[in-house]
């Protein structure tokens, strides 16, 4: 078991390969803990200013950080972001490492925090979604092709129905409904009383409703 795999599982000290007995466990455990000890020793040397140990430590940390980030659900190129943020934080926080304690829990805490930060940033940013037929499948907001023809037919039917009304009712419907005049204005224009206009208007509406509904039923059949 590699150090990165052990770190990925989060149980370095209890790392145990599958199908292994207690004898087979020993080398893996001692390898993992010796790896951790060497990381700890490198960090201690880095605290004292040893650049070569520090370079080796950071290089060794890269695959471990990647594995830890993956275990937190980070995927793709964002793993690189987590690796770089974690390396920067290691550099910034190197004084806080206590060589008397194991190295990997220290590294894991930093990596998990940086992974969470990167995941949060990613969720705030707008993302491209892969959907190749989205453009073709999108419903058009514009009216349907036959909309204008239907509209023209409906208008013609209304004009014909109004034309067939008796003159008093037609006058009322034209002034009050189509030209949207008030009862007072229509009364002044036509010389009829408001009550007469109202009566004619309601009779006209009733007649129109009857004639238009019958013509619609006729056209449907």
């Amino acid at each position, binding site marked *: 078991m590699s150090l990165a795999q052990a770190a990925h599982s989060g149980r370095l000290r209890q790392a145990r390969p599958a199908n292994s007995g207690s004898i087979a466990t020993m080398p893996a455990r001692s390898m993992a803990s010796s790896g951790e000890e060497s990381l700890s020793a490198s960090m201690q040397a880095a605290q004292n200013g040893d650049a070569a140990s520090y370079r080796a430590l950071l290089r060794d940390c890269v695959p471990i950080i990647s594995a830890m980030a993956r275990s937190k659900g980070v995927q793709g190129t964002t793993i690189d972001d987590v690796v*770089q943020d974690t390396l920067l934080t290691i550099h910034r926080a190197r004084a806080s490492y206590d060589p008397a304690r194991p190295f990997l*829990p220290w590294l894991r*805490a930093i990596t998990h925090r940086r992974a969470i930060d990167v995941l949060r940033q990613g969720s705030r940013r707008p993302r491209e979604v892969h959907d190749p037929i989205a453009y073709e499948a999108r419903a058009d907001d514009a009216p349907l092709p036959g909309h204008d023809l239907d509209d023209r037919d409906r208008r013609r039917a209304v004009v014909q129905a109004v034309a067939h009304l008796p003159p008093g009712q037609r006058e009322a419907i034209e002034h009050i409904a189509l030209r949207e005049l008030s009862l007072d204005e229509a009364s002044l224009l036509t010389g009829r009383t408001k009550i007469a206009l109202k009566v004619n208007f309601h009779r006209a509406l009733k007649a129109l409703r009857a004639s238009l509904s019958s013509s619609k039923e006729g056209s449907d059949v």
Partner: protein
Amino acid sequence: MSDPASHERLVEELTRSLAPIRRLPGPGWRAFAWVSAVLGLGALLLPLSDAAALQARLGVPDLRYAALGAMLTSGAAAFAAFQSSVPGRSRAWALLPIPPLVLWLGVSGLGCLRARLAPASNLAETGEMRGCFVFLMAVSLPLSVLLVMMLRRACPLNPSLTAALGGLAVAAAAAALLVPFHPHDATATDLAVHLVAVLIVVGLNGLLGGRFLEGTIGRRSAARAADADP
């Protein structure tokens, strides 16, 4: 997917800027240093207090235990704050100040019953309470600045939690330092004033201190995201 070249560049960059660094003392030592600073401030202020009145007040069990609770809360919260500022330490340390906090607030709350049990007690007036509030705020400020400066030296991965624990440490320390200057016994309004002051100090530390502490950690991906945004 991985970009080894850019990792290698960063490793080289960090290695170039490597300098020997003094290891941070453990959280216990750092908490001890801060508590010592608090005690030093208390020693400076002590000559200004009324020693006889202080002795009389400390003779009353609930006032004595409230002062003890505040001191223990301050120390425990400072220790927890320093623990939380080191990566890899258990977050359960944040619970450490709760028992002394319960003692402090509980005993202070019991003290409020004094008005009913002993009507002759010396109770607070509005002007005195304003004085307490100003004292708590004035003492909290330098202690907060000192604590945040000390916490910044580590690497607080949860800046808001660390700063809130620091705020509790500061507020409890200020309340403990107030004891020698407190001219009256506890009442409900008095406790409320103290609680408001504590909450203000904890809240301000959580908000401002958290930002100060967050600024200590360099994050390259955040800078990249900011550059990418139009």
